């Protein structure tokens, strides 16, 4: 976890995939390895005479993600991070370049021949409303990878539900009976079903209420630790990535512009774009100089108990406003509650610097 990865270096290392016996050994076969990956999309032709427009979604990305690493991918929408992630998970194929998962190439394989990949690599999606089939019961949803891969189901669904903090009677209900946060828990349970080695999370908390983000992030944190997973975490939200990841790559217009250990990148961003991104994140610390997370939590509880707030999110907003007023900072840029709530480098009582 506290692994001080060096900023990315393109290793000219040997590419001998251990076919057949991949295992999770500590050797340096990367969990995910990308070599010069490009992806172009051809826009539909709009005119008979001119050539169709080509969108270069991912440009020449070379990247290694070590087993057990928590890797973050940051970029604004349209930066190509989702495309990259789809290619890593075999949902899309690169126009050129090579992708190896645990040493095995996947870029040329048809979906049919990627069966083995499905046991190694699973996804958690962004939208909790559309990532679960509304017509399926939770039991069927979670056991889908098991059924697809012919793994006996046994009591696995119940175990997984408990693991992600849901009661076992959830199994017989339908997705619309759950909140966004609970749905993401179900998504995580489904991803864990085939005992994968690699978990890819595509903006798993972006669609959630601020008040439940922390819970889902903590869950992902826990399962990555508990199952010793390699995590690839995609987000446009820098503070969330900081909370979760050891190493971060910043993408812009299909290219990785900067890559490095999380703290280093946050403290000392090299690329102008990274600096710009970081500058655009409003700093809660300004408003809360000298205050503690516990204090904010206390305010939240007070607001919740009082008349002002009807739910957690509203209470949080009130608490933030209060803190801001005390610190003499007027409204404007919204404070990022995650800066407090998600920062796992600080204890609850720790001072926010």
């Amino acid at each position, binding site marked *: 976890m506290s692994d001080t990865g060096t900023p990315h270096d393109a290793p000219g290392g040997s590419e001998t995939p251990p076919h057949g016996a991949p295992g999770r050994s500590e050797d340096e076969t990367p969990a995910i390895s990308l070599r010069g990956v490009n992806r172009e999309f051809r826009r539909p032709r709009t005119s008979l005479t001119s050539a169709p427009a080509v969108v270069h979604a991912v440009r020449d990305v070379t990247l290694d993600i070590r087993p057990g690493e928590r890797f973050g991918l940051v970029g604004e929408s349209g930066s190509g991070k989702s495309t990259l992630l789809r290619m890593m998970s075999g949902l899309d194929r690169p126009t050129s370049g090579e992708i190896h998962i645990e040493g095995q190439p996947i870029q040329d394989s048809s979906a049919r021949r990627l069966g083995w990949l499905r046991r190694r690599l699973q996804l958690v999606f962004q*939208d909790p409303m559309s990532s679960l089939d509304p*017509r*399926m019961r939770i039991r069927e949803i979670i056991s889908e990878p098991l059924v697809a891969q012919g793994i006996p189901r046994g009591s696995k669904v119940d175990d997984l539900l408990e693991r992600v903090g849901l009661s076992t009677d959830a199994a017989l209900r339908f997705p619309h009976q759950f909140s966004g946060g609970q749905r993401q828990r179900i998504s995580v349970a489904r991803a864990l079903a*085939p005992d994968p080695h690699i978990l890819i999370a595509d903006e798993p908390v972006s669609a959630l209420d601020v008040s439940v983000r922390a819970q889902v992030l903590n869950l992902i944190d826990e399962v990555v630790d508990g199952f010793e997973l390699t995590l690839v975490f995609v987000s446009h939200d820098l503070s969330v990535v900081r909370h979760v990841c050891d190493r971060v790559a910043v993408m812009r217009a299909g290219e990785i512009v900067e890559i490095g250990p999380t703290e280093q990148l946050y403290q000392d961003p090299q690329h102008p774009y990274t600096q710009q991104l970081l500058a655009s994140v409003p700093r809660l610390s300004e408003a809360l100089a000298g205050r503690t997370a516990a204090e904010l939590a206390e305010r939240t509880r007070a607001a919740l108990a009082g008349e002002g707030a009807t739910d957690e999110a509203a209470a949080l907003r009130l608490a933030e406003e209060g803190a801001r007023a005390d610190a003499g900072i007027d409204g404007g840029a919204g404070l990022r509650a995650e800066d407090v709530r998600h920062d796992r480098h600080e204890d609850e009582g720790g001072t926010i610097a």
Partner: protein
Amino acid sequence: MSGRRLNAPLLIGGALVLLVVAMALVSYVWTPYEFKFLPVPKEQTPNAEHWLGTDRSARDVLTQILLGARTTLFVGVVAVGVAAVIGVPIGILAAMSPGGFGQFIMRGNDILLAFPALLLAIMFSALYGGGTLIAMIAIGIATIPAFARIVRSGALQVINTEYVAASRVAGHGPLAIARKHVLPNVIGLVIVQASVSFAIAILAEAALSYLGLGTPTGQPSWGRMLLESQNVLHRSPHLAIIPGAAIALAVLGFNLFGDGLRDYLDPKLEGR
């Protein structure tokens, strides 16, 4: 789902559909008279003996209406059955095929869509001899594009959802995805389309029978009754009005039912 509300079109349409079904069922156990020439005066107006009167061959009109309901349902089931059984897989296939092939299917679909259903039915009748079944298979074939289109658009929405991506990551192939995710999520559209197409098929049968190409003489059909009433329209208008009203109500019923069902099944309207 929890917030669903029954709406007026659904209830009224449902009642009319049930009425047609009830008439067809009743005709199996009871009709006022036999369907044949009776030794009674012709062209009677509705009266105590013959509730809806008699036609110009002195057959009881109510008997014909009840028996005709069978024909009406039969044509609907055949036409919609043919259209759905062929159209739904075509729609799903077109949505799930990559690039060119799906487009190719839909262009073929467009060509078929350009054919008027009645014209196709008349062609079929000319080629294979008349009869209700032949005519309705033709109507069914002409209705395939309607199903294929609506299913394709629904299926396209489904296959772009994250749960289908999740299913692919889980290891399911296209067939399993079509069966487990696409079909269950477009079946509502199919049911709605079916009830609307049912109404169209009823109308088509009536029109074909009126033209003398559908249900043959000696077989009760509402369209046929219209045809036979035409020469006596000036002195016995009820012989046209009664089957006309039956057709209108059945078509209205299935249309309202389809509209109501669409609203009922639409999750976006849930809880309104």
